[in-house]
């Protein structure tokens, strides 16, 4: 289970081994199923890693995602005619991270000049 926050993006890094194909000919994406619609974000494929960035979900969808809701997430790898889902999991929506600061007191600095 992966924790996600509505107002914060997440980056997932997967180690992988590829043989028989160059990383240039494959693409990858990370997909989250929400209310029957797939939200897929492109991932970067390097020689031995796949790096998938999930943006803050509240910037992606108008669906209301309640805290505690879980959704399916999967990694898709697509090549020339082939398709693999090497990883699946669930995400859980956590309380958004918010920092509120309130100014408690405002005092002007006092400068006193005394004659010598």
């Amino acid at each position, binding site marked *: 289970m992966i924790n996600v926050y509505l107002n914060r993006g997440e980056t997932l890094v997967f180690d992988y081994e590829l043989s028989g194909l160059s990383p240039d000919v494959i693409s990858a994406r990370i997909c989250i199923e929400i*209310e029957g*619609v797939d*939200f897929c974000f*492109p991932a970067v494929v390097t020689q031995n890693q796949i790096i998938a960035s999930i943006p803050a979900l509240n910037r992606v969808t108008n669906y209301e995602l309640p805290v505690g809701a879980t959704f399916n997430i999967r990694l898709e790898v697509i090549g020339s005619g082939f*398709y693999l889902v090497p990883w699946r999991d669930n995400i859980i929506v956590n309380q958004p991270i918010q920092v509120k600061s309130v100014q408690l007191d405002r005092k002007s600095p006092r400068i006193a000049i005394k004659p010598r």
Partner: protein
Amino acid sequence: MELVSNKPHDLTFESEITGVDISQLRGFLRLLIDGIEYGIPATIRKNSITVSIPALESFVKQPFESRTEILAKLEITGPDFYLNAWEDTLVVKPAVKARVAPVTIQGSGKVVVKGLKKTTDIDKQFERAGITDPRVKELIKKKMKK
């Protein structure tokens, strides 16, 4: 093809699927919007593939304020295979919306009738002729009576 951003749309594709068990296939209509692929599941039958696209505004955060071209593709995946069966550009039209704000009504809204002005046919003729001077009007009326 055009989509209106606040309306659902149904797409139907004719298809011929042979050599594979249909129940093992999954289909998605992918809409590429602002770097994100939104995938709507497709129903695959032997001779047709249908996709019911919900109103884009209901799930896409990006507002469609003007005509927007988006790439759409129909992906079919099976056990270990991938097929991009169709690809095209769709035009998303913004929804036409009108907001009516209530106008504040001041006062009690009384209507007072101060007097009635009788308008006759001759008055209308004066107006048409551009005669505004009341003395001229009276003269003409007297002459007409005679």
